[in-house]
């Protein structure tokens, strides 16, 4: 396997992935970051075989329930349209499902936000559903609860970090 190490003199680049966005990179100096994820979910995919990785930061489970918004214009806002869009874009960059490392963070809820109002939980179900169609499974996840999370992916090493304020960073 090709060794992808950050050169010591390289300037590290940080690229934010806002909600309803995805970023894909093969630049080993780049780190993708989805800041303060709430009920939405940040999904980091990395293929060490070809050094390509990306983060999708979607917000809602189902594009058919978004009255007043055209999902064709914002496919990355929803799990049902965003996950296929993201995964296919990575396939086009040479990603192979058998080599993928997959990390997911988010899906939080407001305290006592249960039943039909628990969008975080629905997001998680929709994500798993979307990934299953490509035989992709989540290797590491931090889902639910009432904390917001920051998820990052270092393209140079393929490692992901999940950060919750006041807690040690979890590196996977």
């Amino acid at each position, binding site marked *: 396997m090709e060794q992808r190490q950050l050169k010591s003199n390289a300037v590290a680049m940080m690229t934010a992935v806002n*909600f*309803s966005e995805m970023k894909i990179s093969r630049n080993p100096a780049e780190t993708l970051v989805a*800041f*303060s*994820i*709430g*009920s*939405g979910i940040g999904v980091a995919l990395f293929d060490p075989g070809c050094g390509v990785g990306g983060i999708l930061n979607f*917000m*809602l*489970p*189902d594009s058919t*329930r*978004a*009255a*007043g*918004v055209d999902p064709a*214009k*914002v496919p990355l*806002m*929803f799990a049902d349209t965003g996950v296929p869009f993201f995964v296919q874009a990575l396939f086009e960059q040479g990603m192979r499902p058998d080599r993928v490392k997959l990390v997911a963070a*988010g899906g*939080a*809820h*407001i*305290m*006592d*936000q*249960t*039943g*039909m*109002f628990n*969008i*975080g939980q629905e997001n998680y179900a929709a994500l798993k559903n979307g990934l299953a169609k490509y035989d992709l499974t989540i290797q590491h996840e931090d889902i639910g609860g*009432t*904390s*917001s999370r920051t998820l990052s992916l270092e393209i140079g090493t393929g490692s992901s970090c999940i950060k*919750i*304020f*006041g807690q040690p960073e979890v590196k996977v």
Partner: protein
Amino acid sequence: MTDLRDIIAQIDLLEPVPPVAAQILALADDPNSSLTEISELIIHDPALTANLLKICNSAFFSLSRRIDSVRDAISLVGLDQIVELVLFNSLSSNFNKELVGYGLGERELWRHAVSSAHVAAMLADRFGASQTKHLIFTAALIKDIGKLILGRFVAFSYEQINILVHSKGQSFNDAEHAIIGMNHEELGALVAKRWNFSEKLIYVMRHHHLSDESARQDLETVLVYLADLICMMMGVCTGADGLSYRFYSDVLNQLSLNGNDLQGIIAEAGKNQQQVEVLLAL
């Protein structure tokens, strides 16, 4: 527990909001006021006038001709937008600061504030509160002003607050009150009082997390609360407090909102966020 006098003494260290802001707000929601009265108020503040004209002539509004008077600005850009710009002009320097205790970087509280104000205005239109739209917008914009002061006290007590939130299931504002003796709602209301904001605005700020049962019957407070929740769920610069506030499904039921409606509103708010980002970059 902290000596509350130490906290309250900090109110005077905030950059004061010019009285003109409160006066314009009062006029904007008064159906009997005229545009002349409002523009008279603005032109007596030269710095505000200059800033307003600069922004109105910026590419953001892309107007067909140059605006050179406040009267023109109001008629071409619209009163809602002018009120918004006056508020931004008076408040952004306070809100732009980094807030260590809440885990918010520079400009992050401002971004959250502006976003929730826009969501609140959208909700005001949807739920028939257009009469008090400016009040709702303003309340959503400044509801967290108490955090500007409380941040450093939260930083010292974060461990204890965190235990109450994550082990005892208390909301962040209840935990603030229990540990520090005052929460950001109570402190925010004191700031608003010092700045001579209206009684109603003070009330909404004081109860925007709806801990008080009677506030759950007040439409303006409910809409500001809902806008805040939506921004937390969307993840617009939430900090150390995350989503650790109470959800009252009864309040949504009163507005005849079900789970699908909530998702629809979040989608619309997410779409509008692009516009908000442009505004924040001005």
